[in-house]
């Protein structure tokens, strides 16, 4: 199942896929190096990872045309692990991440994505963009003016070159930026930092290696928290990216297969001495923009990446960091949702709060998983709060018999239980109270307890209490999901609204 794919997924778009694959491979090199630097490992760790993850997901991923590689979101999570325990623990954590993701695929983690609201997704990408940008700042502090000039010039090339007719759209401008800045720095003999200064580059094909860590509970204790965060963030970004590509290409993807595919890819990366990765929004968008649609483009990107870095490692080590910074600033600008700033005013306050809180939490913790968790939690609380407004109690009095009739309409659950209790007038001296629940919905045990409370209070005031429609009201306390998915069943429960 995992290895089956339709013929047209591979061969439906050969020319477009090959071209896009080349563009993506060229764009991947600087990014994989930059993300390795963020994680604090040698560039070859990110490059091997990108190769392996791209190739494996090309075969087993659930979304053709998506680019999965070493990414910033993942790199940010591993910084402290690498700093405190070293590379071998990172590789072990990568293996565990893959295993966790495969399990997530089998327990259908993909369907949980529906809890991640649009505001949380926007917060996620914005936070990611901010973190990628912040990660470039060390390269821009305490440096000579040459670096600033080169970075500015690089950004100029990236954004202005595509405006030139014809050739502008046939040569990748980030590549041109890197080539131009490298040539310039070699020609002028500038003494600025280059990729070669940042660590080892791959000079050979990767080999299979089991991480050199003691197989003990102690090791598991160290890597497990990292692996969980990595697994969650990896799947979140991958599934978000898959949704974006679904929209762009007007087609559908298999989200649970994607989870398993990501897991397999990460296990592969861990064994080849690479860091954990996931799908990347920016590169995937570039792939689609360049005309890539099928699995072939991902495979091309991964293979070509490895071939290029193995044969061109001499040249790659001469790339000035300023060029890399320019490319990464482009990535962060492209990842940020600028529209969301304008939308802050237009959207409901609760959505804006969810988005902003997601961003703030991530920027402070450097952990996208925590940010998303806070975002989802806030969104759920806001939702519960909104729904609790859908409750009112109307009443009438039958003066002849001194009977008060209350009619409850709406949703009674933990958040509206207090409001429910307060809707009754306990001080009124009546002989009998009738509570009509025909049009009320009791969602949980809290609401039932609240009703008990109301009954007891009335009885203490010396009134008889009669409850009608209890059965209808409590049909909503059903914890078996999916029982009420037929229109007539829903009508039965929600009837009267």
């Amino acid at each position: 199942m995992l290895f089956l794919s339709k013929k047209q997924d591979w061969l439906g778009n050969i020319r477009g896929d090959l071209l896009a694959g080349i563009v993506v491979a060229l764009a991947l090199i600087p990014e994989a190096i930059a993300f390795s630097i963020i994680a604090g490992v040698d560039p070859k760790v990110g490059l091997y990872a990108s190769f392996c993850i791209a190739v494996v997901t090309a075969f087993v991923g659930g979304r053709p045309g998506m680019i999965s590689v070493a990414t910033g979101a993942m790199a940010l999570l591993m910084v402290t692990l690498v700093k405190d325990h070293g590379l071998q623990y990172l590789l072990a954590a990568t293996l565990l991440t893959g295993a966790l993701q495969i399990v997530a695929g089998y327990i259908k983690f993909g369907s949980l994505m529906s809890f991640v609201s649009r505001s949380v997704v926007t917060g996620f990408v914005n936070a990611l963009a901010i973190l990628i940008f912040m990660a470039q700042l060390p390269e821009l502090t305490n440096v000579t003016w040459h670096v600033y000039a080169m970075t500015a010039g690089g950004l100029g090339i990236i954004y202005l070159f595509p405006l030139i007719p014809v050739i502008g759209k046939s040569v990748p401008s980030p590549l041109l930026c890197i080539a131009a800045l490298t040539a310039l720095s070699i020609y002028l003999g500038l003494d600025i930092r280059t990729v070669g200064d940042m660590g080892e580059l791959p000079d050979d094909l990767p080999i299979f290696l089991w991480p050199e860590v003691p197989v003990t509970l102690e090791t598991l204790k160290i890597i497990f928290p990292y692996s969980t965060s990595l697994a969650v963030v990896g799947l979140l970004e991958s599934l978000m990216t898959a949704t974006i590509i679904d929209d762009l290409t007007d087609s559908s993807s298999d989200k649970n297969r994607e989870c398993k595919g990501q897991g397999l890819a990460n296990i592969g990366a861990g064994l080849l001495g690479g860091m954990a990765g996931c799908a990347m929004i920016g590169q995937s968008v570039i792939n689609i923009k360049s005309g890539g649609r099928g699995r072939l483009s991902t495979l091309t990107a991964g293979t070509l990446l490895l071939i290029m870095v193995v044969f061109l490692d001499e040249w790659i080590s001469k790339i000035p960091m300023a060029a890399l910074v320019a490319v990464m600033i482009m990535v962060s600008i492209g990842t940020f949702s600028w529209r969301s700033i304008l939308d802050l005013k237009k959207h409901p306050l609760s959505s804006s709060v969810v988005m902003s809180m997601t961003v703030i939490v991530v920027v402070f913790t450097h952990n996208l998983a925590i940010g998303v968790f806070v975002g989802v939690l806030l969104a759920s609380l806001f939702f519960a709060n909104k729904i609790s407004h859908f409750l009112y109690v109307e009443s009438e009095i039958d003066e002849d018999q001194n009977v008060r009739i209350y009619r409850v309409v709406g949703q009674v659950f933990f958040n509206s239980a207090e409001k429910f209790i307060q809707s009754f007038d306990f001080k009124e001296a009546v002989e009998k109270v009738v509570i009509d629940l025909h049009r009320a919905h009791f969602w949980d045990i809290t609401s039932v307890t609240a009703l008990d409370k109301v009954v007891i209070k009335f009885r203490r005031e010396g009134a008889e209490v009669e409850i009608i429609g209890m059965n209808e009201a409590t049909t909503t306390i059903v914890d078996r999901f999916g029982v009420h998915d037929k229109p007539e069943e829903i009508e039965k429960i929600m009837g009267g609204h």
Partner: protein
Amino acid sequence: MNNNENRVLACIDGSALTEAVCDYAAWIAQRVEVPLKLMHTIDHHPETATMSDLSGNIGLDSRDELLEEITQLDQQRIKLRLQQGKLLLETAKQRVMQSGIGEPILTQRHGSLVEALIELEDVTRVLVIGLRGKVHENQPDKIGAKLESIIRSLHRPILVVNEPFKAPERIMLAYDGSAAAEKALDIVANSPLYKGLVCHLVCVSKDDDKGKLLEIAENKLKQAGGIEVVAQKLVGKPDLVLCEYQETHDVDMTVMGAFSHTKLRDLLLGSFTAKMLLHSKKPLLLLR
């Protein structure tokens, strides 16, 4: 049988065989007296790219811009094809109405042909389709790319048209004694489509037992009435012998069971149905 629910479904794509498909569909619809439905599908091909910008950069909100751009391109492209399809359907409608059919039902669907046919299977009595579509129009050594998967996924009779219309007078029923062949025999015996035609009941086998079976089948068909039966037992390679018989006896249409074996077996031994589709010069009515 509720006539509103069962239709002759003709698939139209504007290729050379479209007119023949219309004529055969009209012929069947008239003989079995069910409404005719003409269908045109617009395949979107999300697996191929419509644009290519190799500048490799992403700028401010380029994701939203890209979505907008691709959507616009798709809209223009599909709109054009919708109009072309409408014209095709209109032309086809005129054609079948000339042959005396009341107003046919026209329908256009997005997505792949196979999917559309599976969705409509319940309301389809017979499917009429050309041997090859527009893509393979000029390649006589190929059958349509989707044909096999259509035949395999549907469980309705399918008439595969491969030449201009000629009202069938003599049909050939390929009989081999299998369950599928018995079923085909029943259908031919009971359907109004074949009344008044000459039916050549042909069995290709070295086996003498098959001769008896053929005799029983012949009697069965004769009892049904309205059909003139000629039974024949031949020896040789089934597809070649049948095609030869077709020519020498001037058969207008061949009726046979189709793809009764698994895909794997066909992959190893070659499918008889596929060979017949390729070699037969006359339309094939495949019964599943």
